[in-house]
């Protein structure tokens, strides 16, 4: 982990609810940033005290840019939307345990802004010669990032309210797939999506990994605020989303 200053290069709205923030960071940190890892960004705004965690949605080794897709949620993400190109931003990075990139066929299942880390993961898998299919479910047009679908060939979009892609839920996409034709599955999305997907994936024999989100104060394992219940080795434990995760074995997570 390093505490460093990045330079905002671009901050543009993609939809009513999502914006894309690109930050130039020192070159030497780039190789340490892996899919699933995240940064804690310091937002200089009235009343905002804690940093906010965001997963990397992409890293470009050539330009030195990191990309975040950010959903407008509250005070912090509202203030961050106003940051201008040319402004400096304090970042703690890279944080957390990322995805295990495996060879073969991977199925990526994203719900809403959960697409962010999976975009980065998909690129990394392809770079390493693996094959990917993506199920990308959104609530409505405002949650849909069009540029994602331009990045990948094998992507199916589902929308809860008629909008982009087919009408339906992520779960409909999962049911339509022969999941056993994949070697591993990766997920990121809201809890309701994860809960719905869980029974379908319980008997899948390959690796299933999930990236979780949580309120956190520090992001590096000190506050113990971001824990999630995990069942492993016949024991229930609280694990830190920030340090033991955010990527966990999906079968072990108690949702």
């Amino acid at each position, binding site marked *: 982990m390093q505490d460093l200053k990045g330079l905002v290069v671009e901050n543009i709205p993609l939809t009513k609810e999502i914006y894309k923030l690109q930050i130039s960071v020192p070159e030497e940190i780039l190789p340490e940033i892996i899919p699933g890892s995240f940064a804690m960004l310091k937002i200089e705004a009235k009343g905002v005290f804690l940093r906010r965690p965001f997963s990397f949605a992409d890293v470009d080794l050539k330009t030195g840019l990191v990309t975040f897709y950010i959903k407008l949620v509250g005070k912090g993400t509202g203030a961050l939307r106003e940051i201008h190109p040319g402004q400096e931003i304090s970042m703690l990075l890279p944080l957390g345990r990322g995805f295990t990139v495996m060879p073969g066929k991977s199925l990526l299942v994203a719900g809403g802004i959960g697409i962010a880390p999976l975009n980065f993961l998909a690129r990394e898998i392809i770079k390493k010669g693996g094959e990917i299919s993506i199920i990308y479910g959104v609530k409505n047009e405002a949650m849909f990032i069009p540029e994602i679908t331009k990045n990948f060939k094998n992507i199916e979009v589902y929308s809860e309210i008629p909008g982009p892609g087919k009408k339906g839920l992520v779960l409909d996409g999962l049911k339509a797939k022969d999941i056993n034709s994949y070697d591993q599955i990766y997920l990121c999305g809201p809890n309701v999506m994860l809960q719905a997907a869980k029974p379908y994936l319980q008997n899948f024999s390959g690796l299933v990994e999930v990236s979780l989100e949580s*309120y956190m104060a520090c992001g590096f394992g000190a506050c113990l*605020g971001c824990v999630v219940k995990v069942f492993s080795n016949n024991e229930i434990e609280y694990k830190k989303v920030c340090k033991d995760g955010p990527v966990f074995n999906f079968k072990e997570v108690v949702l």
Partner: protein
Amino acid sequence: MNLEVKIDELTLKNPVMPASGTFGFGLEFKDIFDLKNLGALVVKTITKNPRLGNRPPRVYEVSCGMINSIGLANPGWDYFREKILPQIKDLNDILILNIAGESVEEFEYLAREAQRFDEIKALELNVSCPNVSKGGIAFGTDLEALKQIVSSVRKIYSKTLIVKLTPNVTDITVYAKAAENAGADALTLINTFSGMVIDVKSKKPVLGNKHGGVSGPAIRPMAVKMVYDCFKAVSIPLIGVGGIDSKEAALEFFLAGATAIQVGSQNFVEPGFMPRLIRELGEYLREENIEGIAKLTGLAHRREENV
């Protein structure tokens, strides 16, 4: 310029240390700075038995601060002694063990254990955690229980004994005096304020434990006043804590009567804050031509008398 301060028989090379529970066991901060720079290392509360802690969500932001209900999650004394203590004993010369118990006997057990380890230089008794159902704040708001715990530990523990008080009482000076009379060598003022946040969308408390402890700059004025009041009430050294996020904030505590200070929530926001603060306090003394930080302690009171 001299940043050295004395707490009982301990000499700290500077007055800055982490507040228990905001710094883990120090290991998470090792990449950011050399922990030897700190005046002392205060570890997260250890209990006799391991504790899972409270159900999440456990932290949430409030205006100019945060609220937490971690619930003293920790691996327990045995694990700490075997696995953690060897890793952290050389991180700083002055290691302060913060302990909590569900009963007087548990405090006594931990004090007896701590007494055996030379690398533990002081004990800080947590009788002020608002997030546990047994012990914690219940001891710190019950004068008789507080006296009993402090005097029982005092009989067992011969090194420096610090008591960390809760602000959730009508008059903290009563508790400060009681702790002093029961044998405390120093007081840490203060732990978090009991509080609650309600999610208006779900119409339910945000925290899994429903309520928690508020910390950060939001509580600083109350913390400064409690240090100010206790400085007049007791003669043992005070360690001030509550929303220190700048040199100026730290100076307020010294002027109110603190001999040393602890940094809490700000460690989460800026993990390298404490070494910066130590540097800035040194610069301040030089610029102001003050011979030592100890000269500042309680200065706001002397000004008051002059008026």
